[in-house]
């Protein structure tokens, strides 16, 4: 499900089934050198999480990307997010990101880090198959966590 008004009624009545939160973590780098790849990473992350939502619509609640500045203190952000996430009773929380800095933040559990693939020059069919390939790498991690 998406974090939108329409889906919330269903979420609230089916909480036992929708037991997993997915939070995309998105670094904004607006420097001249970083802008383009930052936008590409954003596109990649959002396509991937949208596909994931489609596959697991009835079990996950996909949040909008949490976007933060390059200089943001990841540890602080992760603490604040965890506290907020605990207020809802999810059994599982996944964070998904292309930002390598999260690899050194051990406090945050279940961070799926994926290197972004620039898809802007791909035609539709090719992009679709690349993204589905990416999805196939992620799915088993969810199934494993749930089993």
């Amino acid at each position, binding site marked *: 499900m998406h974090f939108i008004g329409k889906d919330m009624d*269903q979420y609230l009545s089916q909480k036992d*089934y929708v037991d997993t939160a997915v939070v995309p973590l998105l670094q904004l780098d607006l420097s001249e050198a970083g802008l383009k790849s930052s936008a590409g990473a954003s596109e990649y992350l959002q396509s991937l999480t949208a596909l994931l939502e489609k*596959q697991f*619509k*009835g*079990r996950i609640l996909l949040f909008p990307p949490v976007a933060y500045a390059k200089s943001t203190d990841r540890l602080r952000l992760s603490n604040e997010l965890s506290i907020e996430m605990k207020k809802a009773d999810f059994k599982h929380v996944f964070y998904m990101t292309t930002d390598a800095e999260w690899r050194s933040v051990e406090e945050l559990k279940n961070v799926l880090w994926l290197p972004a693939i620039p898809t802007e020059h791909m035609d*539709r069919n090719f992009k679709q198959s690349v993204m589905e390939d990416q999805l196939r790498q992620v799915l088993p991690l969810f199934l494993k966590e749930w089993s």
Partner: protein
Amino acid sequence: MSNNRVSRRQFLGYTLTGVGGFMAAGMLMPMVRFAVDPVLQQKDGGDFVLTDQRAEDITEEPVRVDFTFEQTDAWYVSEVTNSAWVYREGDKLIALSPVCKHLGCTVNWAGDPEHPTQFFCPCHAGRYEKNGQNIAGTPPLGPLDEYLVEEQDGYVAIGAVRPNTLV
């Protein structure tokens, strides 16, 4: 003092007009929607989308067939790729929606090794027979929806979705 400075009274006037406008829009909106909606729905449901799946390659074993169309969500037009599970029964093509009737995950044919001739939903282990019939004791409460499907110049074309007619 410049002439186009907005006096307090004018400002209040503008604001009130603004609020009034909102209220009028609020009253009009339901009526407009009522008038426009059925037309839109027909347009979305009527057409067949040609896929690149050859019809002659379809067997009795369901395969996933993707189809892409443009979807208008308010003012935002986007391309959406959906899929169907397509198989052959006698000389007829059957296309089932992969959307689980429990809470909407995507089901897979033979997704569970223990039930190789059923559709399986990975979210809460929902299962369906090949014709879409939900299996009692698993969470889904109804059969998978069915797509209209036809052959166009040797290729599979997918049409509107409707409730299952096979079970």
